């Protein structure tokens, strides 16, 4: 007998699965649900609601092509925004109207008599209707998505879509800008700043891919404003430094020196003639101030170091010299003399007590050495794609690298979708290699729950001439990963995945959003009349979209109102009862906020408006979020419908 034992035929498991599937599909419940879903979908198609919705989206999308735009990429993004916005808007209206009216419509027209008297439970009826409406939304978004892709394709086909828009602002009157592919199609001569001291700024727009800029821009500050995610390589300028012009003011016994920006090796000469300095031979406070933005240390993360410098104050007349090492303090507010009335400025400041002998006379030279800014003021910017994760970074000025250190600290920036807690940051690995010696090292970068991480390049891996080769491993296409070195400013921007895939994921997000609103409207209609259910859905949808604003408003109103008993109680200026009451209100508000849905999580515009792509994690998160709320709405709807009488 044992010899007759048969092995299972290869197709057996498959046939068992098919039998199981057939059995499941052939059960009465599934058939009834399928019938109700088909009926709802058929109704939407035959009543031309679906056609109307898609037609409106197409009309909006076609209209967006008429929008003026100089740059291809901007136009494409604009068209994408328009189409996705139209899909969301019309989908929301359709979800509210279809969901809110399908069940009341059946009840009012008494068609429900012919269904509910058949072997259909009320739960099956609501589930079938809800699934049918979700199917309507799916078909709508499928067709609308095709319209979006088609219109976007038309928009991108008008000009070369690969172009990008970049503005190069040059603070130099004699800037010469050449490109490898010919003259830059620039709009020159636009005077942006005219204070007479910082020179004239020119705006240069580069509209083609692979355009590189080379040339000498002496004594200029270059700022690159990235407007899109496309590829742009900016060739290394010969030298970049900050042109600083000093200005001195006298106020009582203070001498205020102000500078635009600060750079290592700057030498400034302040003209002190004409100033009525005190006659007494005593120290004079010299307040040194330069403008700049502080990069706020985020909560729980490493704080940025404060800028440091060595100042040498020298009086050419008396040949007296004072050396001060300082660590600047960041301040914010009006500086009285320079800032417009009522306008706040941000600056770093340090006050030096200089002897009278140094400040006497007509001039004061200030030399700044060993300047270590908290954040790079300017630098070379590289943009790349995921296809090119390896970069050879050259042009290190060994003199500018920190001396006497074994490592050089570099900062990694990871830009991801803030507010999405489920984003999985597993970190990545950076391989640093010295091209001259071939020596390399893998440096792990832990990005879990961080946007910023520091790594330390071994000093020996950075060669003054050959540079350093940096390879980013374990890249996540949905993340934008940047690398910025403190001393050698460098920024790598890795392009996310394709535009089309991102659009598809955006539409998926909208689908979950619309599914939720559909079920919400259908559930509401089990208790409310059709117009009220539609209105209710619209109000919830709109208020959910601005939940953050409401949250902010409530929080501010609860906690920051003047004379708030909570605040007073904290300072011992209110009774315990008042404090407790305020606490109660506070907790209630927090609960309300926690329960209220925030539809920002579904919003594709949240990503699109920022020029980001929609990651899969956001779609997954949106799906989970929608399913939870759909389940809650459905249970409530069933509870209401179960007790409802059809008179």
């Amino acid at each position, binding site marked *: 007998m044992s010899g007759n034992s048969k092995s299972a035929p290869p197709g057996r498991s498959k046939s068992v699965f098919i039998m199981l599937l057939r059995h499941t599909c052939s059960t009465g419940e599934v058939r009834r649900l399928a019938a109700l879903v088909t009926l709802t979908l058929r109704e939407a198609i035959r009543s031309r609601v679906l056609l109307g919705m898609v037609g409106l989206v197409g009309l909006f999308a076609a209209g967006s092509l008429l929008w003026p735009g100089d740059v291809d990429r901007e136009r494409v993004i604009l068209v994408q925004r328009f189409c996705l916005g139209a899909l969301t808007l019309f989908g929301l209206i359709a979800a509210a109207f279809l969901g809110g009216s399908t069940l009341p419509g059946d009840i009012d027209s*008494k068609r429900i008599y012919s269904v509910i008297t058949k072997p259909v439970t009320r739960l099956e009826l609501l589930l079938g209707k809800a699934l049918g409406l979700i199917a309507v939304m799916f078909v709508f978004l499928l067709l609308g998505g095709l319209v979006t892709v088609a219109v976007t394709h038309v928009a991108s086909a008008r000009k070369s879509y690969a172009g990008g828009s970049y503005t190069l602002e040059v603070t130099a009157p004699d800037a010469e800008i050449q490109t490898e592919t010919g003259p830059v199609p620039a709009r020159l001569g636009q005077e942006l700043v005219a204070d007479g001291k910082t020179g004239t700024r020119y705006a240069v727009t580069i509209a083609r891919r692979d355009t590189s800029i080379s040339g000498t821009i002496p004594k200029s500050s270059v700022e690159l404003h990235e407007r899109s995610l496309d590829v742009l390589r900016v060739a290394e300028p010969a030298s970049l430094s900050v042109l600083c012009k000093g200005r001195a003011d006298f106020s009582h016994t203070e001498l205020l020196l102000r500078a635009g920006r600060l750079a290592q090796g700057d030498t400034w000469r302040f003209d002190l003639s004409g100033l009525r300095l005190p006659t007494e031979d005593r120290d004079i406070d010299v307040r040194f101030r330069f403008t700049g933005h502080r990069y706020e240390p985020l909560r729980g993360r490493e704080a940025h170091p404060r800028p440091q410098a060595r100042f040498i104050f020298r009086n050419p007349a008396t040949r007296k010299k004072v050396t001060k090492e300082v660590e600047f303090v960041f301040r914010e507010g009006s500086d009285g003399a320079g800032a417009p009335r009522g306008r706040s400025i941000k600056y770093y400041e340090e006050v030096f007590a200089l002897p009278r002998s140094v400040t006497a006379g007509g001039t004061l030279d200030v030399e700044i050495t060993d300047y270590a800014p908290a954040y790079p003021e300017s630098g070379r910017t590289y943009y790349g794609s995921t296809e090119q994760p390896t970069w050879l970074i050259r042009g290190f000025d060994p003199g500018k690298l920190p001396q006497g250190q074994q490592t050089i600290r570099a900062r990694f920036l990871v830009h991801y979708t803030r507010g999405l807690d489920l984003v999985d940051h597993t970190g990545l690995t950076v391989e640093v290699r010295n091209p001259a010696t071939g020596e390399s090292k893998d440096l792990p970068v832990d990005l879990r729950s961080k946007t910023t991480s520091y790594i330390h390049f071994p000093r020996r891996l950075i060669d003054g001439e050959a540079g350093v080769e940096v390879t980013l491993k374990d890249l996540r296409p949905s993340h934008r990963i940047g690398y910025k070195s403190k001393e050698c400013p460098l920024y790598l921007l890795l392009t996310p995945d394709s535009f089309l895939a991102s659009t598809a994921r955006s539409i998926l997000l909208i689908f979950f959003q619309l599914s939720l609103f559909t079920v919400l409207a259908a559930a509401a209609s089990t208790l409310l009349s059709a117009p009220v259910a539609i209105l209710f859905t619209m109000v919830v949808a709109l208020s959910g979209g601005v939940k953050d604003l409401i949250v902010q408003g409530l929080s501010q109103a609860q906690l920051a109102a003047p004379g708030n008993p909570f605040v007073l109680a904290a300072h011992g200026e209110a009774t315990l009862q008042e404090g407790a009451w305020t606490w109660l209100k506070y907790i209630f508000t927090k609960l309300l906020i926690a329960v209220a849905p925030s539809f920002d999580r579904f919003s594709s515009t949240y990503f699109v408006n920022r020029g980001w792509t929609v990651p899969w994690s956001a779609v997954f998160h949106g799906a989970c979020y929608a399913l939870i709320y759909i389940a809650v709405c459905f249970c409530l709807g069933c509870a209401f419908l179960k007790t409802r009488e059809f008179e």
Partner: protein
Amino acid sequence: MNGETVIQTFDLTKVYSGFMKPEVLAVDRLNMQVRCGEVFGLLGPNGSGKTTTTKLLRGLIFPTRGRAEVLGSPAGDIAAKEKIGFLPEESYLYRFLNAEETLDFYGKIFGIPRRVRRRRTDELIELVGLQSARKRALRGYSKGMSRRIGIAQALINDPELIFLDEPTSGLDPIGRREVKELILRLKGLGKTVMLCTHLLPDVQDVCDRVAILHNGRLCEEGALDDLLVLKNKTQLTVDDLTEKEQEQLKKFLAGMGHDKVTMTHPYDTLSSLFMRIIETERQGEHVREQ
């Protein structure tokens, strides 16, 4: 099976109430029985509680007090609904569907396999005479056609119990006769039919038993023959008598002590006259065509 109770109510009471609305007693302690295989008529003037009673029996509304059993299960039970067919007062159907799709939809609701569904669809469309309009959307149907498709959907599951609410309303005399014949045919197949109608001649033609409601209360229930028969009167129908023969017959009956004798020619019903004329016309057309 015949003679078993299919529908039974026990002190069935329904009071409509609502917020800021006065209470309305629609059905008051109703106790009635419908037996298997009979055609039962539920009669009563407007507002007597007929519709409320049928809604209670179909589970559309819930009783305030008492209970009802349909096919041995509580009213509204899903298992029992599989054996019930229902024709509403108006044909409240999905008007964007055509006849085939309508029957297919309700067939799916009953979980009927596709092959059986198709066969029954064809049979029922032929039964109600909608072959030429089977592909037309219901929104284009006349009232009579809507009633026909309504009847067809009520029979899609080959039900044991059929609720018919005003089945002949909107139909022409031929259609009414066909529906009545259909009801009798269903009865012949052992089905139970519960009929709600204002058209008393229809009830008289097809019903075995009736219940008469008034203000939600059951006033009378019983077999139609028992209720209608005038036991103190005798009707004699003879072929045409001459006046002389009539006089002789009166004298003969007077001799037996029956003084109150009425002799007259009986009237045909308008319905029978109409049917006779239409039938004659149709036969003439048929002969001319040949």
